[in-house]
C-alpha cells in the first residue's frame, strides 16, 4: 500500500475577489503521469504553484511525496523537480554550471553530483553541449536542460507546467518522447499541465479543469468513450437557420463551436446520407460536412460546453487581470 504521490483535498486559492481555484480534490498514484488540462486562466498554474509550495492555499490541503505543502515546505521542495512555463536558466552560465549550481542549492552529496549530472545530461542528449553557454541554446534544448535540472536531485515527483509551450511541433514531440520514457524507466511521478489536447493523450489520467473546478477526471480512453458520439460539423451560409432546421427535422440540438455549427450523433457516418436525404431544399444549402471520432476536444466540449479554444478566448480577460494581480 503506497501513499499517493499527490493527494489534494478541498484545495482553493483566491486572489482578492477572484477565485482562481475553488476547492478541488484528487489523488495521483506513484509512477503515474497525470495531466491537468484546461484553457489558459482555468487555474492550472495556480494549482501547480500551490503543489510546489510557491503559493499558499487559501483553504484546503495538499500532500506531495508524503509531505504537507504548507507545514513541510522544504521537505516537499527537496522531493520535487520543477520545470516552469518560462525559462529559469542562467544564460550566462554553461549547461554544466547551471546544473552544478542547482546541485549545490539542493545540497546533493558531493560524490554523487558529477555522475548524476552526466546521467541526466545523457538522458536528455545534452552531454555534447555541456560546456556551451546556455544563451546559445535553442528553445528545445533549453527546455531539455530544464527537465534535466529538474531531475538532477532525484525528485520523486516532477512538475511540468506547460512543458512544450512556445516550441515547434517537432520539438514538442521530441520533448514528449523524453517525458514518456521518464515515466516508464525512472519510476517517477509526473504532474503536468497543458492546453494542447493531443498532448493530454500521453497521460495515464487527465483532469479537465475549467474556471477553477475539476469537471471530470479519468483516463483519456474512458473519457473519450464516455462521450460516445461522433462530432459532426456543417458549413452553410446561414448558421441560425441550420440550427433551427436540425432541431425541427432531426431533433438535434446543435450549437456553434469555433464558428461552425456542431453537434454530436452516435453513428456519424451513417447520419450523413440521412442528412442529405431529408435536408429540405428550403433550408440553406450545405457547403460541407465533416465527421470526427470523439477526441479529447469533444470530451472537453461535452463537459464544459465549449471548445478549449473558445474557452481561452473568453477567459483571456480574466487571465490578464490575474496576471496583473500576481505580478503586482
Amino acid at each position, binding site marked *: 500500500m503506497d501513499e499517493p504521490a499527490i493527494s489534494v483535498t478541498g484545495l482553493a486559492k483566491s486572489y482578492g475577489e477572484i477565485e482562481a481555484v475553488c476547492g478541488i480534490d484528487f489523488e495521483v498514484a506513484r509512477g503515474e503521469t497525470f495531466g491537468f488540462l484546461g484553457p489558459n486562466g482555468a487555474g492550472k498554474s495556480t494549482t501547480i504553484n500551490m503543489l510546489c509550495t510557491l503559493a499558499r492555499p487559501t483553504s484546503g490541503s495538499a500532500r506531495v511525496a508524503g509531505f504537507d505543502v504548507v507545514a513541510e515546505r522544504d521537505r516537499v521542495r527537496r522531493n520535487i523537480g520543477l520545470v516552469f512555463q518560462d525559462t529559469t536558466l542562467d544564460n550566462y552560465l554553461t549547461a554544466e554550471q547551471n546544473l552544478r549550481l542547482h546541485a549545490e542549492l*539542493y*545540497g546533493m552529496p558531493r560524490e554523487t553530483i558529477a555522475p548524476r549530472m552526466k546521467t541526466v545530461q545523457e538522458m536528455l542528449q545534452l552531454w555534447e553541449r555541456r560546456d556551451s553557454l546556455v544563451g546559445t541554446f535553442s528553445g528545445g534544448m533549453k527546455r531539455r536542460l530544464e527537465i534535466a535540472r529538474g531531475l538532477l536531485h532525484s525528485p520523486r515527483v516532477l512538475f511540468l507546467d506547460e512543458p512544450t509551450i512556445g516550441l515547434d511541433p517537432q520539438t514538442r514531440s521530441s520533448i514528449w518522447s523524453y517525458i514518456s520514457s521518464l515515466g516508464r524507466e525512472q519510476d517517477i511521478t509526473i504532474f503536468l499541465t497543458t492546453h494542447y489536447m493531443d498532448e493530454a493523450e500521453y497521460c495515464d489520467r487527465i483532469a479537465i479543469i475549467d474556471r477553477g473546478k475539476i469537471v471530470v477526471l479519468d483516463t483519456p480512453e474512458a473519457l473519450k468513450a464516455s462521450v460516445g458520439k461522433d462530432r459532426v460539423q456543417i458549413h452553410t451560409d446561414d448558421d441560425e437557420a441550420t440550427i433551427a432546421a436540425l432541431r425541427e427535422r432531426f431533433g438535434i440540438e446543435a450549437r456553434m463551436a469555433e464558428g461552425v455549427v456542431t453537434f454530436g450523433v452516435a453513428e456519424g457516418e451513417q447520419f450523413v446520407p440521412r442528412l442529405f436525404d431529408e435536408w429540405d431544399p428550403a433550408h440553406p444549402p450545405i457547403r460541407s460536412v465533416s465527421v470526427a471520432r470523439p477526441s479529447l476536444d469533444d470530451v472537453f466540449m461535452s463537459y464544459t460546453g465549449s471548445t478549449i479554444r473558445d474557452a481561452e478566448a473568453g477567459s483571456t480577460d480574466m487571465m490578464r487581470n490575474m496576471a496583473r494581480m500576481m505580478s503586482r
Partner: protein
Amino acid sequence: MATESTVPPTPAALASGSGSAPAHEIPGLHVPSRSVRGELRAIRAVWRRELIRFSRDRLRILTSLVQPFLFLFVLGTGLSTLVSSSTHGVSFRTFIYPGVLCMAVMFTAMFSAASIVWDREFGFLREMMVAPVRRSSIVLGKCFGGATVAGFQGVIVMAIGPLVGVHYTLGLALEIFALQLLLAFSITAFGMMAAARVTQMQSFMALMQMAMMPMFFLSGALFPVNKLPAWLGVLNRIDPLTYAVDPMRRAVFAHLDIAPLARRALDPGVTWWGWHVPGLLEAAVVAILGLVMLAVAIAEFSSVE
C-alpha cells in the same frame, strides 16, 4: 496510512502531531535535510555564480573604470590649477583619491545588486527562490558576491595609487581593501533592499542614480568636511558614505609625507558636535547600516511567496 505502521513515529513527529513524515525516507533519495552546511553551500554557490558572471563580463570591468579615471585625471587635473593655492602643496588628485576609491567600489556594488533585478526578469531568481534553502542564504550569497566583485574592482583603482602620489605599504593596502569590502557589502545590501521592492530595471537604475549621486557629492569625496556651511555640514554628517570616505582618507593621509598643517587642512576628520569621530566608529556606522539593510532585504525576500 499503512506505511506508517512499519516505522515507529519519532518523538518529534509525535509531538508535532504529524506521524507520516519519517516513514517516507526511501533509499536512493539523495537530498539531505536542511543544515548549516547546506546553507553555507548555497551561499557559496550563489557567490561563485556572481564571480563566474563577472569574469565573463570584461566589458563591465572596463566600463566601470571609466568613471573613476574621469574623476581622478580629468576633474582632478583640471581643478588642481584652481585649487593649488589651498592644498598646501598636496596634489588635488591625491586629495580626491580616497573618494574615488569609494566611488569605484560603490558603482560596481550597485551593478551587482542590479543583477538580481535581471535575475527576476529572466526567471533565474525563481530557480533560487524555490530551492530548499533559506532565502537569507540566497541574499547573503548575492551580497558576498557583490562585495567580492566590487572589491576586485577596487583593487584595480588601488593599483593606480602611485600615479597620484600614493605609495602603498602592506598595512595600508590591507586597511584600504578591508574598508572597500565593507563599503561594497553595505552598498550591495542597500541595492538588494531596493531590488526586493523595485522590480523594473529602469526604475531600479533611476532609483540608484538618484541615491548614489547625492551620496557621492555630499560625502566629502571632493572637499574637506570642516568649515562647511551649516546646511551642507548637516547633510554631510547624515550621508552614510561620509563614514566610508573619511576613514579611507585618514588611512591614505597617515601614510603621506606631508606637513602637519596640510594634513589638518585636507584631512580634518568628521566631527559630531565638535567631537572627532574615531575611524573605527565610522567603519562601524557603515557596517551597522549595511547589516540593517541586509536584514530588511532578507525579510523582504523571505516574505515573497
